[in-house]
């Protein structure tokens, strides 16, 4: 099958959505500049016009609110935030408005919009250009949250998000943009709420999100050479998330490592661990271990960044620990 990079897959999904449905438009900062979105939106404004691919004032709140209003009046907006950090200026329209609308009005109106949030970190950018805030949004009823890790899922989840009919936060990670993988040319969807077994194994289940799934894949290969057979699940959606798939796997292996590239406290990994602890307690053979960022803002200096971000080896070490502590 044809290969695309993760960024190219995102771009192709946008182009096909814009081409198919006149209700779809994109609004956000940097849409006419490759600086902000990498190649993930390159040239779309030339292809579809600046009326539908709208670069905008530095107004996260109003542009996101405008997307909510457009969605309520029949459009299918994709609002683009080139950094998740900046998107915090739009929390009112996302959390108070979009996420509550269907419930408040008993389904008489809904907000079919996609909020695209980019995690863009590393490179000595420091604390306000580095944050991965998926747990904030996972907490909110009425929001769906997806985090594709592969080019295939990047395309399929974006199309699914636009078709969903609800507010969906689509979080992509710049560290994945240059990774290549098979991507069908036609439009397809990846179901929201379904994870995927990337690698089958019998010894330890590793559940990972986004870039951590890519690292976990490498860790799985390393561990296989050491005789530890990892079952790797790429969660893909974190709200709703695939509890059945994860619990079924842990019932088999009895051991779980959860890897999420954000802070530990109140995070995705803790949520997965709590659910598995409640559902699969009697099958657990070892304590559940989380691999996350420390509860510290992102440092700037490269020397500190190296200490801050987990690597494939961090995940491998966690798996070895769980394996050796097995009863």
């Amino acid at each position, binding site marked *: 099958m044809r290969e695309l990079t993760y960024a190219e897959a995102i771009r192709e999904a946008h182009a096909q959505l814009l081409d*198919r*449905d006149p*209700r779809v*438009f994109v*609004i956000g900062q940097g849409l006419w500049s490759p600086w902000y979105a990498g190649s993930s939106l390159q040239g779309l404004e030339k292809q579809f016009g600046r*009326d*539908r691919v*709208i670069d*905008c*004032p530095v*107004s996260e*709140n*109003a*542009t*996101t*609110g*405008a*997307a*909510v*209003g*457009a*969605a*309520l*009046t*029949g*459009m*299918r*907006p994709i609002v683009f935030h080139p950094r998740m950090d900046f998107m915090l200026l739009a929390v*009112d*329209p996302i959390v*108070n*408005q979009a996420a*509550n*609308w*269907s*419930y*408040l*009005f*008993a*389904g*008489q*109106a*809904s907000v*079919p919009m996609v909020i695209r949030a980019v995690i863009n970190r590393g490179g000595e950018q420091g604390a306000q250009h580095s944050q991965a805030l998926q747990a904030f949004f996972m907490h909110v*009823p*009425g929001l*769906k949250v997806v985090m594709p890790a592969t080019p295939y899922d990047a395309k399929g989840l974006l199309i699914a998000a*636009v*078709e*969903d*009919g*609800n507010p969906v936060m689509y979080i992509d990670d710049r560290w994945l943009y240059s990774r290549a993988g098979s991507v069908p040319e036609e439009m397809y969807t990846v179901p929201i709420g379904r994870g995927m077994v990337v690698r089958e194994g019998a010894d330890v289940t590793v559940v990972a999100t986004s870039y951590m799934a890519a690292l976990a894949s490498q860790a799985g290969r390393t561990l296989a050479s050491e005789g530890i057979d990892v079952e790797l699940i790429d969660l893909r959606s974190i709200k709703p998330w695939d509890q059945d798939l994860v619990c079924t796997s842990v019932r088999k292996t009895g051991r779980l490592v959860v890897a999420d590239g954000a802070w530990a406290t109140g995070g995705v990994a803790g949520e997965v661990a709590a659910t598995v602890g409640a559902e699969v307690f009697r099958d657990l053979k070892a304590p559940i271990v989380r691999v996350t960022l420390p509860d510290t803002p992102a440092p700037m200096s490269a020397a500190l960044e190296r200490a801050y971000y987990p690597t494939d080896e961090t995940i491998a070490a966690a798996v070895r620990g769980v394996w050796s502590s097995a009863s």
Partner: protein
Amino acid sequence: MEPTALTRHGSGAGEGPAVALRSMYAMMLRIRLFEERVADLVEAGEIKTPCHLYIGQEAIAVGVCAALEPHDSVWGGHRSHGHYLAKGGDLRALMAEMYGKVTGCSRGRGGSMHLIAPSVGIFGTVPLVAATVPLAVGAGLASKLRGDHLVSVPFFGDGAVEEGHVHESLNLAAVYHLPVVFVCENNLYASHMHLLERRAQDNIFKIAEAHGLPGTVLDGNDLSAVHHAAVEAVARARAGGGPSLLECRTFRWRGHVGAAWDMDVGVKRRDELQDWLPKDPVARTRATVLRAGASEDDLDRIGRDLRAEIDDAVEFARRSPYPAAAEMQAHVFVSRPEVP
């Protein structure tokens, strides 16, 4: 009483100006009497959802909504019973919503502060101050993208102007040239705080010019002034002339929330209220309608009919069922295929 006649015939095209004026008076009275009944029911403890009453501001909702078409949208806030009724929302459904009943316009999910009536262009009023202003800009953006010439109107108070939402929205509407008429109902108070305790200058209408759109200040208790300004602003927006801002000066008679007149914590508004009561927009409009040739009997009959309709709505609300507890978790998401 035909509320929808208002939304069909803004400035009275196709019917005489006297008929349009009478319709607007009837709608103002409809809001006044509805709100007075709600106030009584709040004091009686029968309605418990927090109610922010619109009494004293009726000319604004009515004058503006009478300038709109049915599919034009209006967007409101916590004090939006008047906007809902003026745009043609169903009165029984509004009353039932006050009671938290499943027959309410929001099916018992919203209460006073969250109202909806999509068929008449109300896609949701919500109480986060200024929150629906950017949403209204989005409706304007949708209108421009579709080319359907629908106009959107965000109603917001003077307090909302202190939120960044409003300034970002004014700029966005101006830079994209969107069909939005911003209506600021300046009733001089945000909760218990007077305008001049919150702003260095009393100059809300001037923020429009700074953002590149026309801004006008007018007497919000003068129905004709509001209506004519709205007709002009709406026509301009619909014709592709871009957004504008109307600052309508008015005064709410009751407290920020609830039925009391002047009992807001820390507020001594009694003297101010005495100045504003003679400027009663409903009484002024009644006088105008009489001068235009209507009879006292005719206008009294409107009042009697409205009271009967409101009595009926209260009975409807009282006997309607509550939402079933089993439905508590329903509608967090909609499930509907959206594939074109």
